[in-house]
């Protein structure tokens, strides 16, 4: 095969400083420079390679920018062919590393090039792309391999070569229709488990036995298609076994005595859904039934909200994992017939400054994980045209082996526009991307722990996304919805077609032909087609009469659609390949055959004799100055500005972002939550708020307190920007370790109990949730982490509030009681103190939030900021820096008499607290509205460019705005 190779580089040899800097961090300090060249490989399906005129055309129109680029066309392989070193010179040494995608990973640029060539009249062109890195420096072969492996190439999706790389043009393998029979009869428990392990099924002994006896009863062996289908459908990821399990829960005192014993019949039913039923809010449209939770927005529209995690894939391929995380959650929104309108993301990473020698084998460095995840989120969200408006980034050594990536999406749908009942005879239509071997076993893989070998074993479970194909799905489904062309819709997520079609056809049964599935390349066996988790696909139930209209829309929006079969009505799942049955299962066994898992959970109360604040302070050499502590907190990576991350996300697209991630005259102060106004609803003043609550530090101390605090934080953040506390819905996302260990599960039970108690107290429904378990690396679990996301209605977008101080001379009030609650606080982390009482549920929180909201609606609140990590001190500093104004406060006013040490009012993280700015003229009216609420006037906004803190008129410290700014903005790493 003749191949042409076109090398396109920036004429001025643009330096990749990022790579030289990262190499230095890796300990390779001899890399002097690095520049990139884009490589395009061309060949032809006909025997004729494109001639010079065609190549000139391709370069002029598609490949080479005449202002910035230079290009060179060579025949492949280029000569001289050397491995590693090219043109060795006397003084400097030059090397080349070339990186290309692995076979089966979609090369989007190559596909665009092929289509563009066709438009230029160059037919039959086949393309592939690669990237060349030119390196200079005294580098050994070992250095080059390390640079390639640790920086330039991710083995999961890419391959590299020192010197010229061989391009791969699509797949050469032939179609395989092989279906295996897997005998289970007579296998022992150990042999059954071996079978589960070897095929990556993640089924336990009891589940394998259930399958064994089913096939013994019907008298035949399962096919690989059937076994894989059962494993997917019964996976933790798809059915949430742990949240549905019967749990024997024992709570013990610190001394080990049993305090209570409970039989819990499902965490989901018993706590999460129970709270939703108990609060019974009339504006909830759908909770825990559809792919996303839905609440009422206005007379015409509803809002859908869903948050997913994509932790395991992001650990292996950070860009692709986060990329497809956004893609997946956006499809959940499309799957409730809504138009996606916004994204959120919350990220938890290991320490960025970890020395590379301390990095356990088999892991990517946390800095590389962060860089890839952030780029992956931006790439997908930006290209879909969705504003990424709310989030958080948390750094903790507990996330070294398992980073967490929470991706959220919001959608808008006209009331009554989401059909959910497929009809007998409806066609099963798949839309969107083609099916490849990508993402096989994603569902079962995410239900297993990571080990240092996972990287090589589970490569196929990780994918990179194609946001432009997904964009087509958004447009096509919206158009099809408005013409009412389908009776049901779902997305192809974990488990691929097997889950999507299996769930949709649960009541009716389905008949499907796998040979009709559009493939990226030949060579997939039937079970691979059925299980593939290739991205950007949806499934619709379409009445046959509507197919032509759907096809017409699909052609317009350039989305591929294919009719795969029908909803049969006989209650069976029948899968065919080329007319031959490859799976025949009753839907009843698939969906109801899974035995209810039995689990044991233990929870032990914290030790009562943990050191108190007093003993800790007596034992430290010199007590840290409150001022120094505040500076350290502001520069702590979890608190410090995330501007360099957030500005790589488009938060303005769709023109409806009213409260942004950064606020104030310099647009750099932190925001509590986002407020959005959807396009198409500008005829009234309603908008909505998105916020989050998360505190894993507290979770290490007490998971019940973490849950209560996360609900309060999400809630108060939404209230801070103007949401009505009586119209806030929440979502839960649990990320936990292996729940088959009773201690991990015990902490999870306590977190669920906290969720229930808080939701009922705040009168807020859970409308959706998701769990990601088995987040362990080599037996080490992550800190149990609960994210609460809130969606609140903002009744009047003209009455929103931001956190930056507005005007010197105004009063500063604190709402809520400050208690000595330093357990699990940032303060205790800095002092390396594991004692202290964790924050509790505030008294009647809803009353105070209603009062604050009433004051905002009356236009009396000039600024508002919630108190979270770092307490009052951090919140006040953030309000000052956002507004470039000073403040003089006396925290004696907020200080209950028993709070002896100034650390407590400054740094306690008690829930239910907000700082409010009110003008002197509005003070009386404001205090009147707040009359029954714990409230204290603590100080004044000043134009002194300084925070001055006193207790009972005794000055404690001053801190200038410059110092605050450099601590808060300076700490962020690029």
């Amino acid at each position, binding site marked *: 095969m003749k191949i042409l190779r076109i090398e396109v580089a920036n004429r001025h040899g*643009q330096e990749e400083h*990022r790579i030289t800097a990262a190499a230095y961090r890796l300990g390779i300090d001899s890399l002097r420079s690095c520049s990139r060249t884009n490589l395009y490989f061309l060949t032809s399906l006909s025997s004729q390679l494109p001639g010079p005129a065609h190549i000139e*055309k391709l370069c*002029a*129109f*598609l*490949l080479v*920018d*005449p*202002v*910035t680029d230079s290009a060179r066309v060579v025949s492949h392989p280029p000569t001289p062919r050397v491995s590693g070193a090219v043109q060795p010179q006397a003084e400097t040494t030059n090397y080349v590393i070339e990186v290309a995608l692995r076979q089966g990973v979609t090369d*989007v*640029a190559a*596909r*665009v*090039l092929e*289509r*563009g060539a066709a*438009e*230029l009249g160059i037919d039959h062109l086949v393309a592939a792309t690669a990237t060349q890195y030119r390196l200079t420096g005294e580098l050994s072969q070992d250095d080059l391999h390390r640079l390639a492996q640790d920086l330039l190439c991710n083995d999961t999706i890419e391959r590299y070569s020192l010197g010229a790389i061989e391009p791969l043009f699509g797949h050469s393998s032939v179609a395989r229709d092989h279906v295996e029979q897997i005998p289970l009869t007579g296998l022992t428990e150990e042999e059954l488990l071996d079978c589960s392990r070897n095929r990556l099924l993640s089924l336990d002994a009891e589940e394998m036995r259930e399958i064994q006896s089913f096939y013994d009863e019907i008298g035949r062996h399962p096919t690989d298609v059937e076994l894989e289908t059962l494993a997917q459908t019964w996976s933790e990821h798809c059915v949430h076994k742990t949240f549905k399990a019967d749990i024997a829960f024992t709570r013990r005192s610190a001394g080990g005595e049993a305090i209570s014993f409970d039989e819990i019949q499902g965490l989901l039913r018993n706590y999460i859904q129970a709270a939703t039923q108990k609060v019974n809010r009339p504006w909830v449209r759908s909770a825990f039934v559809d792919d996303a939770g839905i609440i009422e927005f206005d007379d015409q529209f509803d809002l859908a909200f869903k948050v997913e995690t994509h932790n395991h894939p992001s650990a292996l391929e950070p860009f692709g994992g986060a990329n497809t995380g956004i893609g997946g959650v956006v499809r959940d929104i499309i799957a409730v017939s809504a138009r996606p309108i916004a994204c959120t993301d919350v990220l938890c990473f290991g320490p960025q400054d970890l020395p590379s020698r301390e990095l356990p084998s088999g892991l990517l460095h946390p800095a590389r994980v962060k860089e890839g995840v952030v780029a992956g989120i*931006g790439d997908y969200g*930006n*290209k*879909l*045209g969705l504003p990424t408006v709310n989030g958080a980034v948390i750094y903790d050594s507990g996330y070294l082996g398992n980073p967490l990536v929470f991706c959220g999406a919001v959608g808008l749908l006209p009331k009554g526009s989401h059909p959910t009942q497929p009809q007998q005879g409806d066609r099963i239509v798949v839309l969107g991307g083609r099916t490849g071997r990508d993402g096989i076993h994603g569902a079962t893989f995410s239900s297993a722990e990571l080990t240092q070998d996972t990287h090589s074993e589970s490569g196929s479970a990780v994918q990179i996304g*194609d*946001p*432009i194909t997904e*964009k*087509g799905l958004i447009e096509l489904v919206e158009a099809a919805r408005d013409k009412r062309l389908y009776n049901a819709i779902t997305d192809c997520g974990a488990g691929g077609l097997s889950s999507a079609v299996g769930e949709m056809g649960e009541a009716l049964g389905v008949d499907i032909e796998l040979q009709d599935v559009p493939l990226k390349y030949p060579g997939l066996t039937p079970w691979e087609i059925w299980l593939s988790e290739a991205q950007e696909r949806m499934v619709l139930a379409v009445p046959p009469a509507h197919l032509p209209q759907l096809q017409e829309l699909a*052609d*317009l*929006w*350039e989305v591929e659609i294919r009719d795969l079969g029908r909803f049969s009505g006989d209650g069976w799942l029948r899968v065919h390949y080329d007319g031959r049955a490859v799976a025949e299962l009753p839907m009843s066994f698939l969906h109801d055959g899974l035995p209810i898992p039995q689990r044991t959970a233990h929870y032990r109360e914290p030790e009562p004799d943990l050191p108190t604040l007093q003993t800790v302070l007596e034992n430290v050499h010199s007590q840290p100055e409150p001022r120094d502590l505040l500076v350290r907190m502001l520069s702590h990576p979890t608190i410090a500005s995330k501007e360099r991350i957030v*500005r*790589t*996300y*488009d*938060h*303005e*697209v*769709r*023109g409806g*972002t*009213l409260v*942004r991630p950064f*606020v104030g*005259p310099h*647009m750099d102060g932190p925001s509590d939550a986002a407020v959005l*106004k959807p*396009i198409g609803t*500008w005829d009234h003043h309603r908008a909505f708020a998105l916020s989050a609550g998360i505190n894993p530090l507290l979770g290490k101390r007490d998971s019940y307190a973490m849950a209560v605090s996360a609900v309060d934080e999400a809630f108060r953040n939404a209230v801070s920007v103007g949401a009505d506390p009586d119209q806030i819905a929440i979502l839960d996302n649990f990320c936990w370790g292996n729940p088959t260990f009773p201690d991990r599960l015990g902490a999870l039970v306590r977190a669920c109990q906290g969720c229930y108690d808080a939701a009922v107290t705040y009168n807020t429904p859970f409308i959706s949730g998701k769990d990601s378990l088995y987040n362990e690396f080599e037996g080490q679990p992550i800190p149990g982490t609960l994210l609460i996301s809130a969606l609140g209605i903002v009744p009047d*977008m*003209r009455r929103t509030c931001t956190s930056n101080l507005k005007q010197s001379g105004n009063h500063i009030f604190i709402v809520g009681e400050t208690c000595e609650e330093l357990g699990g606080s940032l303060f205790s982390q800095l002092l390396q103190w594991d004692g202290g009482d964790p924050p509790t549920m505030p008294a009647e929180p809803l009353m105070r939030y209603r009062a604050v909201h009433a004051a905002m609606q009356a236009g009396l609140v000039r600024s508002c900021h919630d108190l979270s990590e770092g307490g009052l001190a951090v919140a006040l500093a953030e309000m000052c820096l956002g507004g470039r104004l000073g403040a003089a406060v006396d925290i004696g006013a907020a200080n209950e008499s028993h709070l002896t040490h100034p650390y407590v009012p400054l740094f306690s993280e008690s829930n239910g607290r907000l700082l409010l700015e009110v003008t002197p003229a509005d003070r009386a009216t404001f205090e009147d509205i707040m009359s029954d609420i714990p409230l204290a006037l603590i100080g004044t906004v000043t134009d002194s460019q300084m925070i001055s803190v006193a207790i009972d008129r005794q000055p404690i410290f001053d801190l200038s705005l410059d110092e605050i700014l450099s601590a808060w903005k300076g700490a962020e790493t690029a």
Partner: protein
Amino acid sequence: MAMNLPVLILHATGTNRDAEAARACELAGASPQIVHINQLRRGVRRFSEFGMLVLPGGFSYGDALGAGVRQALDLQVFFHEELTHFIATGKPVLGICNGFQTLVKAGLLPGYADDGESPSAIQQSVSRRDVTLTHNARNCFECRWVHLAVEQGTRAGCLAQLVEPVFCPVAHGEGNFQVSSRDTLERLEKDGLVAFRYVDSDGVPAAGRYPLNPNGSVADIAGICNRAGNVIGLMPHPEDHVDPIQNPLGGSEGLGLSLFRAMIGIASD
């Protein structure tokens, strides 16, 4: 009457700020319609039905071969004559962000160097192109609000009615305006082909200072126009500031809506 001016909002696969562009046109008194490029290719809709063309922001075809490159190819291959005619009749064309990148890469901005071009010479003119929009100096996508001043003496005469700097967001990774030589820059300036430059809130030139000039563009150039002044392209998004409530600093100044009013104005004259 401006009320009836039909505006074509061009949607190619991957376009995403079309709905906001449509809203801006509507608020400015026109009747926008979002039309898919495939409808134009099939002849179901035609450019000639419209009095103004907007190429909105987004990532056409994923920008997989560089921002706007594939969409520019579509314009050249399928619509060259129609578009040339549209522009020659003086109808306004506005390219925002990805639309601007597309117009530049298709050779429509700042326009073919002299008047002697013929349709058959497209390819030549494409490779003769001496301005471009390339990767931001900081080499990443960036979203932030910027101030834009209308260039004194620009050939886009309709912009003279914009009395104050426009305040609106940028959101792009490839908005760094560059030229092939100092001569090119001098010619652009001398010929009045610069339309907008990045400035601070008082209208003082950014002079390359980040983040006032967010992407490293040469001479702070944020937008340019053609010789006739009816084709205008810019990187920032005036369509995202059409209502004072969108202003992150409060106040009612700097509405991007004024740009839409001005351009719809020339079409309606």
